[in-house]
């Protein structure tokens, strides 16, 4: 089980409303990612679910039971913190055992679960070390181990990978995804990194200034961003957004076109311009193109071996099937 429902949940710190009333439903077994720029309220939302912050207004239900005023310990949730929050004075074994000790689980059962968790997380050789003697990735795994032995109804992750270096982050991302496949337990995961969100999530919740901008699967958000914010936030490199007379031709206030949805030609096209900076990744090449009559350069993707260089003239044509149109209120036009 692991069904979480928020109804009219609102959070104020003093006079400042960080989360205006919102509704959200997380289905059992889903991997849900809260994503947004820093300060968007995603961590606060997670902490409201955890019970580490009190809800100002509204109702939190976990597995159909109202949990709004339950203390964190009673919510049957496990959390992995950004700093890992391992107990520095306890060995890895004791760290992992701590929640079971609190739950008064029998000793032999504790042992069994610790052994299992250590095997799954490759921690067997480190059980008697202190957290201070472990690397960042190992600490991360201990924190996850401490969470899984409780067999919670849902896992909460608060930016768990942001303290790891880039290579390790990719590895841990896969490990967490695999863990989710194996346990099939609900996971709520907070990150500011849209790549993490796209690669891991079943459902992404895009937050901005405390508001939910859009909820959907990664591909839904990619194909049909419901507003300008989501359009600009999801996708890498970012979608090109063009306002003004060019957009007006499409009966929109702003149009958006992803770099991968622009056809490039040396001879003819809808727009023409000169190539500025280019980034060669081998498989792809990205050009920044200064278009005549546009203030901002456009980013376009072409294949890796194209023979164009800095200063060359280039012609671009947006793929009409993938053109996004937005009105003056930044909402998507059908």
């Amino acid at each position, binding site marked *: 089980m692991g069904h979480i429902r928020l109804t009219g949940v609102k959070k104020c710190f003093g006079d400042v409303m960080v989360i205006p009333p919102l509704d959200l439903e997380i289905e059992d077994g889903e991997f849900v990612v809260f994503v947004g720029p820093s300060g968007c309220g995603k961590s606060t939302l997670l902490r409201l679910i955890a019970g*580490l912050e009190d809800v100002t207004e509204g109702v939190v239900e976990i597995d159909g039971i109202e949990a709004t005023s339950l203390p964190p310990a009673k919510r049957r949730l496990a959390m992995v*913190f950004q700093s890992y*929050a391992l*107990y520095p004075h306890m060995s890895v074994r004791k760290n992992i055992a701590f929640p079971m000790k609190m739950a008064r689980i029998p000793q032999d059962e504790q042992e069994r679960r610790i052994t299992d968790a250590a095997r799954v997380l490759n921690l067997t050789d480190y059980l008697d070390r202190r957290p201070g003697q472990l690397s960042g990735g190992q600490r991360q795994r201990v924190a996850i181990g401490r969470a899984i032995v409780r067999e919670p109804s849902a896992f909460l992750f608060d930016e768990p990978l942001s303290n790891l270096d880039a290579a390790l982050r990719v590895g841990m991302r896969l490990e967490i995804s695999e863990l989710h496949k194996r346990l099939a337990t609900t996971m709520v995961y907070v990150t500011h990194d849209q790549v993490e969100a796209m690669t891991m999530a079943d459902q992404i919740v895009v937050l901005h200034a405390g508001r939910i901008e859009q909820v959907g699967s990664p591909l839904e958000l990619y194909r049909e961003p419901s507003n300008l914010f989501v359009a600009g936030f999801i996708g890498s490199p970012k979608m090109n957004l063009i306002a003004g007379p060019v957009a007006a031709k499409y009966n929109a206030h702003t149009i958006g076109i992803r770099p991968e949805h622009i056809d490039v030609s040396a001879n003819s096209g809808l727009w023409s311009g000169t190539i500025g900076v280019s980034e060669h990744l081998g498989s792809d090449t990205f050009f920044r193109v200064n278009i005549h009559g546009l203030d901002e350069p456009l980013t376009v993707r072409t294949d890796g071996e194209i023979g164009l260089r800095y200063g060359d003239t280039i012609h671009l044509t947006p793929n009409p099937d993938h053109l996004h149109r937005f009105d003056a209120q930044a909402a998507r036009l059908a």
Partner: protein
Amino acid sequence: MARSVTTARKTANTIVAGALGLLMFFPVLWIIILSFKTEGDAIKAPLEILFNTGWTTESYGTVQARSNYFKHFSNSLIISLGSTFLGILIAVPAAWAMAFVPAKRTKDVLMWMLSTKMLPPVGVLVPIYLIFRDLGLLDTRTGLVFVLMMINLPIIVWMLYTYFREIPGEILEAARMDGASLREEVIYVLLPMAIPGMASTVLLNIILAWNEAFWTLNLTAAKAAPLTAFIASYSSPEGLFYAKLSAASVMAIAPILIMGWFSQKQLVRGLTFGAVK
């Protein structure tokens, strides 16, 4: 990245710094040497003392026999330990509340507490002396325990506060998520993490109380005099007394020197009130 330096440079550094260090340490070293000499030898020329005299422990015996040294030693022990532990007892709840349930005024209260430490003792010497006289606290260990507890209380509160504040909030939240009740959170997580800081605080305050030499000199006579006051009695000596003074001094500073070496870091933290990090 630290860069490697040439061995010659490192050797030169070692020699210069070693010489200066030795120079600073020399007076302590010298009384250790003199304390193992006879009175007659102790006033000879330094080179002669070093190379041309025998060693003896008789001064240590004489100090105890003539003046009941261990009474003063135990006075020092009782006064410094007593004032420190009493101070800890009062300071822990205060520092705890300031660190974990800070209110709007917390910072002001803390600042005010520190400011009391800056009151010159001589400014309140007369009233304290008279109050102690009227309450019969002059020349008692109880009186000194109280006074030293009061003058060190701001430092104790301050140090405990900084140590408690270093315990990351996420760890306490993790314990809460792991199902710990408030009581379990305190016993299993908070206390074990707070104990090293409390130990450092105790250490530094024992040192400060042991060496305090304004109130101990002014509020004691014979009975409750700790070592600071006892040593001061050597300022009007008769006859030869260098070896005895050395022996008494070595015994008075040895325990604190050893503790002091362990508490260098806490010294900076405790005596600068966090103004230097």
